[in-house]
């Protein structure tokens, strides 16, 4: 323990780099997941059975195969087919696909939860399907999505240490280096716990603010 603090001081720049990589993987993974969640969630409500079926299949595939295996497949198997991705890109892609599949269920559920009467009112005003979705259904569905998306975002953050297994120099990776060089296993991992907890709290607070704003906009509480 006597050596730990000076070692920690020396490792600080690398830890900061690691923290940045973790944040980067979380943000990029979540951004990709959000796009996929919308696309797959809306397609799985399509009126056309083949479209709906294809979307459901993709969702079930990425939910049903573990993130761990998806990541390893992208990192170890894909290069054998001639595609080599950066380790971080593999990580972001795996996180995006996996959490996008879960997120699509959130989108699908939230859209389904907007009362049918809202769509009927829009039809009675001559609004077409795309306009109804964009102007009437989605703005109300958003308010219902934020809370479940918050849970998924925290889970995504907590899944990022997996990336260290495919050589991504994230927070976990850097702390592991610190642990090997100092031998201070307990202190290193305690620090790691603290840092992830801090990140989770920051994300949580941000999402809470988003949720309040979305609800006010949807007219559920607050408003004029």
């Amino acid at each position: 323990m006597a050596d730990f603090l000076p070692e920690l001081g020396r490792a600080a720049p690398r830890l900061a780099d690691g923290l940045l990589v973790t944040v980067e993987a979380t943000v990029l993974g979540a951004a990709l997941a959000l796009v996929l969640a919308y696309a797959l969630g809306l397609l799985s409500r399509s009126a056309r059975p083949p479209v709906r079926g294809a979307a459901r299949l993709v969702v079930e595939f990425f939910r049903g195969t573990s993130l761990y295996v998806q990541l390893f497949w992208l990192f170890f198997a894909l290069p054998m087919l001639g595609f080599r991705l950066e380790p971080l890109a593999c990580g972001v892609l795996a996180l995006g696909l996996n959490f996008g599949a879960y997120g699509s269920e959130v989108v699908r559920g939230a859209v389904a939860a907007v009362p049918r009467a809202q769509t009927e009112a829009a039809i009675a005003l001559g609004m077409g399907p795309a306009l109804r979705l964009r102007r009437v259904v989605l703005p109300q569905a958003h308010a219902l999505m934020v809370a479940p998306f918050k849970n998924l975002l925290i889970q995504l953050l907590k899944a990022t240490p997996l990336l260290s297994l495919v050589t991504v120099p994230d927070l976990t990776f850097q702390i592991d280096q610190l642990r090997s060089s100092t031998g201070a296993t307990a202190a290193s991992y305690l620090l790691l716990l603290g840092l992830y907890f801090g990140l989770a709290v920051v994300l949580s607070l941000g999402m809470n603010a988003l949720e309040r704003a979305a609800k006010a906009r949807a007219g559920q509480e607050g408003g004029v």
Partner: protein
Amino acid sequence: MPTEDLAVRFDRVTKRYGDHTVLDGLDLEVARGERVTLIGPSGSGKTTILRLLMTLERVTDGVIHVAGQPFSHMPGRTPGKLVPASERHLAGRRRRIGMVFQQFNLFPHMSVLDNVVEAPVHVLGESRDEAARRARDLLELVGLADKVDARPTRLSGGQQQRVAIARALAMRPEILLLDEVTSALDPELVAEVLDVLRDVAHRTDITLLCVTHEMGFARDVSDRILMFDGGRIIESGPADELLEAPTEERTRAFLGSVR
């Protein structure tokens, strides 16, 4: 009556849910500018008629015509054959018809003004300024000029329903459907909504199809009342005659129950 003078014509319209037949070959004609009220016991198919006309439900059989043209159907590949209307066919034609619902169904994420402005801007392509100006006029007409910036959820039921009426009128429909628009209101709020509708009926030449249990209102606005039972018109006639001297026993019983 020549078909072009008809706002609405139901031609042997059948509606079934599973093996439950709600309407069985219904024929119904409404002239342009006519005010028709549908009365009858709960479950007799009145709402179904309005929902079919608004294309919120599809007919099982038969054809609905609006303004002399097939509405529920469109010409198919084979000449002379009609096929069920596509979403695209309906998109352009639906705006002839407006509807006010029992539960108001205002958009909770928009202000009162935006509720009224939404469709004229995004469906009719009016400029926002023009649409907002007309929306303010309509909100004035329904007595809510001071509520333009409020959220619908902050309004009483009667106020919400008046916004819904303004919202429907903003699309300048030729035909307005009213489905028990005061049934969800506290009794003391019914009059303010009916007064607005009487006003609309007197100021415009809009065709009205209305389902209501408010017989005083029905007498004031309607040219004709249709009594429904079991998905059939069992009696029809001018409002005064039918309300004063119904010929059918079931009509008498029904009128007795709502008075």
